[in-house]
């Protein structure tokens, strides 16, 4: 494992330059550049805020206030979007880099890093926009003192994204169907996670459905970002435990996948 990490470090200039190139290529000749990536969740948040203030379930935004709702939704969309994209884009991380894999025996982790670091840059910019929005809507005195609570969550979610991308990347080499299955699973998970609804609306009156949210890792990640930003308090202990536990489990699974398949996967490409 140490040799693997040392090799990733040795080739840091290579994968970092590829991440930079991916970003430049994506936004070359584009009027808004990276703004397009920001515009999508901003537009989605604006639409949802307007829709739910008019026809939403039980007047969700009327109850909590549209400012509050828009920050909650924007944060949830950003966190959920990062985890979903890590899985879906991660599916192509090995097949997309096949030319390098066939030329040079580099550590396989760098290909999922290439994918996830590109997503991380967008994610961090979006988080900054959410913070700016929270300061604008709720005031700096209320927002800034609890911002530090996001600091440990940022590397944790990136680590989780890398692990998910790595597992999805290896799985796709073996089974083409994985990306399609994950796409459907992400759609289902979107409606089982409090992304556009608040938790109490998703669970409703029936407390027996609470486990759907309580033990949903995506919901836990969302809570760890929403609580400090909107309620100015830390998330629940269960949410922190679940994010740490899920990330560790995924990282262990990704490391075992690399260890077991790194000498086998080339025969399936």
């Amino acid at each position, binding site marked *: 494992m140490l040799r693997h990490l040392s090799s990733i470090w*040795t*080739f840091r*200039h*290579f994968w970092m*330059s*590829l991440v930079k*190139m991916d970003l430049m*290529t994506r936004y*070359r000749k584009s009027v808004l550049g990276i703004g397009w990536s920001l515009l999508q969740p901003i537009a989605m948040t604006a639409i949802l805020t307007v829709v739910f203030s008019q026809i939403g379930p039980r007047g969700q935004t009327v109850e909590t206030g549209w400012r509050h709702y828009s920050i909650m939704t924007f944060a949830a969309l950003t966190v959920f979007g990062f985890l979903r994209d890590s899985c879906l884009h991660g599916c192509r991380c090995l097949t997309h880099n096949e*030319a*390098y*894999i*066939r*030329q*040079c*025996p*580099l550590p396989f982790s760098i290909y999922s890093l290439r994918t996830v670091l590109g997503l991380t840059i967008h994610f961090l910019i979006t988080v900054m926009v959410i913070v700016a929005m929270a300061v604008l809507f709720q005031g700096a005195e209320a927002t800034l003192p609890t911002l530090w609570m996001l600091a440990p969550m940022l590397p944790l979610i990136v680590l989780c994204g890398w692990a998910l991308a790595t597992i999805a990347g290896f799985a796709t*080499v*073996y*089974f*083409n*169907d*994985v990306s399609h*299955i994950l796409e459907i699973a992400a759609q289902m998970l979107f409606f089982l996670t409090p992304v556009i609804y608040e938790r109490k609306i998703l669970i409703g009156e029936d407390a027996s459905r609470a486990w759907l949210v309580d033990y949903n890792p995506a919901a836990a990640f969302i809570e760890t970002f929403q609580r400090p930003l909107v309620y100015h308090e830390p998330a629940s202990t269960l949410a922190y435990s679940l994010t740490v536990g899920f990330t560790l489990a995924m990282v262990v699974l990704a490391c075992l996948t690399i260890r077991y398949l790194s*000498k086998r996967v*080339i*025969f*399936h490409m």
Partner: protein
Amino acid sequence: MARIDLQDASLTFSLRQTRNVTLKEYLLKGMFLRSVNPKLPVRALDGITLRAGDGDRIGIIGHNGAGKSTLLKLIAGVYPPTRGTRVVDGRICSLFDIALGFEFEATGWDNIRYRSYLQGESPKSLTHKIAEIAEFTELGDFLKTPVRYYSAGMMVRLAFAIATAVEPEVLLIDEVLSVGDHAFQAKANERMKQLMSRSRLMVMVSHSMDSIIRMCSHALLLRQGTIQMQGDPDDVVRTYLEGIAPTNASHPVGGLIDAATQPAAAVEAIQEPVLAP
């Protein structure tokens, strides 16, 4: 110290009619349905034993599909041996398909950086080399344009200049001695000579018997994944050339298909592909 030590190294590929296995195929395989996409093992390399150290210059010859390029990739670590052991010490520089792995949307300058970093260079070490690499390509202002606008020859020039700018300990070369146009070839040959003299250990695959005799101290003749003969390059090349005459003699290519262990349907599927109407 540079060292290559292969002990009884073998490499078996499992071919399938279709490249990827579907989840359905994987789940149903071996249960109650007969596999529609069975594996067919092909022994690409079989029982290769090779020891080389500092100063050795090894040439590999053989027919198409004899396993020459696969052996180089095994030495490079791209393919792990499925049986036997592989130990290689020293910084490896591999010149395989040198046009492979370009980032087509990036400029020539950017590709010089990516590929140099891939070869283990750092921004600091590249500072001293990048101008020399650019000059060697003779691409001038084209280096500022994306690589997708390059012709095949221009791409080969760029790839060759980058690949040969390193300080290798173990140099692996696969048929790259005839790159570019005639003007570039003389320059490329000179560069190759310098690179070979700088490297401690070289393994070269070539169909140019003249190059093998001139540049190598030891030669291997591969046939269907096994070493048929090894020794002095003159003797090995002579045996190879005698083996291919008369020109209408049959020369089996490719690794050995391990048909004995496989269901007949799998072998038929590979040997007698069904043509679409």
